[in-house]
């Protein structure tokens, strides 16, 4: 490491690879002082909130699902939840647990994509999944197998795994058969060895960068379960508040270098997503997920953002076991078709849907008039909530790594952004990185 890098460092990485969407990182250090450190989000806004206005309430889940090809299930469920909250629609217990299973499928598939195909290449000094697969085909094959299983759960429960069609306001238009559920159950049980093989490989072969910065962790919290689909909002700083108060928890604001809004609550930034959930709700993880946390060295509260990937792997195990529990319950009481609940005539209201999706809490808020027309919309996407926290991590970490080469610093910055699993396509749309020298 040359002495000059301790004084002047100007790095420009104009395409952060292996994330969903497009953005830039710019870092400018002059005489050891950080002049600029930005995560630019440069994709154009897509105006979903604008074109939902004037549509019927039942169209919203199908339209908002298209915000993302990775987390379309989450958008569907958040949208349905907001409509049902606005129109006071109560759903059956069967619908509740089918939705939990559907959301588990998205957690599994999105986390597996991120762990095995976007992040794993970093651990094997590979630039992409193709070279990583040559070095460790077993890991890539496990990733493909788990992703297929997750997609198949989405297909069977949601009608299709991308942009589901069977999950609608008030319930489901079709329910899975016993045979389909039994098939999934067997495969979920089989997946245990794949997940534990991954844990074994990670324990032996990967090195997580050594960096910590305490921040505020925000997630849903529920008294009876590890909160994904239901719950109120919990901050590690300020405690529990109703999901209805989401605006007080997010406080969106605009920064000039990002087309996605930033958020803050009790501090200058907060974290949402797998690590925030594990930190806040560790006690409600299934025992084998806690065991996975022990094996992988994650102790809560964990303040290392690079451990988000590890938290995702812990959630993969949690979702696997939780899905088994749900399916066993469904096999004891086989699902029957129920006509989806409809709103009362002239129902109207202001409703909020708050759902944990892979990258954190997703909020949809609709105002619906007595004709069932959506009059106003607000969607707050997890990646947007994490942006300010990523920038503060970068600002805090860079001064600690000036003894490293420019290439190492660049890689660590890219890995940091990737760890958050940003979906810029959702928040506005991608990411590029620029270190300026």
């Amino acid at each position, binding site marked *: 490491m040359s002495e000059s890098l301790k004084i002047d460092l100007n790095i420009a990485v104009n395409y952060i*690879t292996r994330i969903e969407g497009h953005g830039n990182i710019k870092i400018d250090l002059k005489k050891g002082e950080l002049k600029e450190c930005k995560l630019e989000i440069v994709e154009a806004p897509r105006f979903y909130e604008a074109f939902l206005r004037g549509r019927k309430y039942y169209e919203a889940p199908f339209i908002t699902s298209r915000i993302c090809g990775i987390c379309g299930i989450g958008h569907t469920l958040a949208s349905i939840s907001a409509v049902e909250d606005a129109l006071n629609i109560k759903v059956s217990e069967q619908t509740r647990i089918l939705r939990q299973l559907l959301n588990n499928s998205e957690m599994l598939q999105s986390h597996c994509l991120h762990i095995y195909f976007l992040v794993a290449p970093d651990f094997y000094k590979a630039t992409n*999944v*193709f070279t990583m697969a040559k070095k460790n085909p077993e890991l*890539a094959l496990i990733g*493909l197998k788990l992703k297929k299983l997750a997609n198949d759960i989405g297909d069977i429960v949601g009608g299709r795994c991308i942009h589901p069609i069977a999950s609608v306001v008030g319930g489901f238009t079709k329910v899975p058969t016993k045979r389909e559920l039994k098939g999934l159950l067997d495969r979920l049980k089989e997946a245990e060895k794949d997940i534990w093989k991954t844990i074994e490989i990670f324990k032996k072969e990967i090195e997580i960068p050594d960096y910590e910065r305490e921040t505020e962790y925000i997630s849903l919290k529920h008294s009876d379960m590890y909160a994904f689909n239901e719950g109120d909002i919990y901050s590690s700083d300020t405690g529990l508040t109703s999901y209805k108060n989401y605006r007080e928890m997010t406080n969106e604001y605009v920064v000039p270098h990002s087309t996605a809004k930033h958020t803050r609550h009790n501090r200058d930034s907060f974290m949402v997503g797998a690590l925030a959930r594990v930190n806040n709700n560790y006690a409600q993880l299934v025992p084998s997920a806690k065991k996975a946390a022990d094996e992988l060295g994650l102790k809560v509260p964990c303040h290392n953002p690079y451990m988000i990937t590890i938290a995702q792997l812990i959630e993969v195990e949690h979702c696997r076991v939780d899905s088994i529990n749900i399916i066993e319950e469904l096999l004891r009481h086989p699902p029957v078709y129920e006509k989806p609940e409809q709103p009362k005539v002239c129902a109207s209201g202001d409703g909020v849907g708050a759902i944990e999706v892979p990258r954190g809490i997703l909020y949809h808020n609709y105002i619906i008039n007595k004709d069932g027309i959506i009059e106003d919309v607000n969607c707050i996407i997890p990646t947007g909530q994490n942006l300010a926290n990523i920038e503060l991590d970068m600002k805090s970490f860079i001064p600690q790594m000036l003894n490293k080469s420019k290439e190492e610093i660049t890689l660590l910055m890219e890995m940091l952004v990737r760890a958050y699993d940003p979906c810029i396509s959702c928040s506005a749309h*991608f990411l590029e990185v620029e270190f300026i020298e």
Partner: protein
Amino acid sequence: MRKIVIGIGDDFFCDDAIGLILLRKLQNNPEVLRIATLLEFGKKSSQIIDWIKANTLILIIDAVKMGLKPGEFKIFRFTEVKAKTNENTISFHQFGIAENLLLAESLGKDISSIYIFGIEPERLEIGNEISDVIKSNIEKYIAEIKNFLYNI
């Protein structure tokens, strides 16, 4: 040798639907069904890795930009061409058939028996109508696919 025909594409992206249209027509043809397994993948091309096996020929039908005139077609082995991929900047919003075949190759699978029936598109944009030049050639494409499957 087992023969598998796969339709790739998007019904709502104009000429990108041609792989699906042709596959659905083939599904109504008992002669073809006797000699080949037909699979409609749509946009979920990652499934292909599971189907690449020894002694199995795969024919993928898809709209392919090859620099031909719109509506013209070509049958070629995937290994004969250099497909444009974005290997280092890839996100999974961009992971298509070419990337999945490269991944299969990286995993040690033999992709030499994968053929593409590529049709040069005229329009690739949002819409559910295919171009006239492609529509008018559908029967010709079907005949060529059948000919390929019978004679390979």
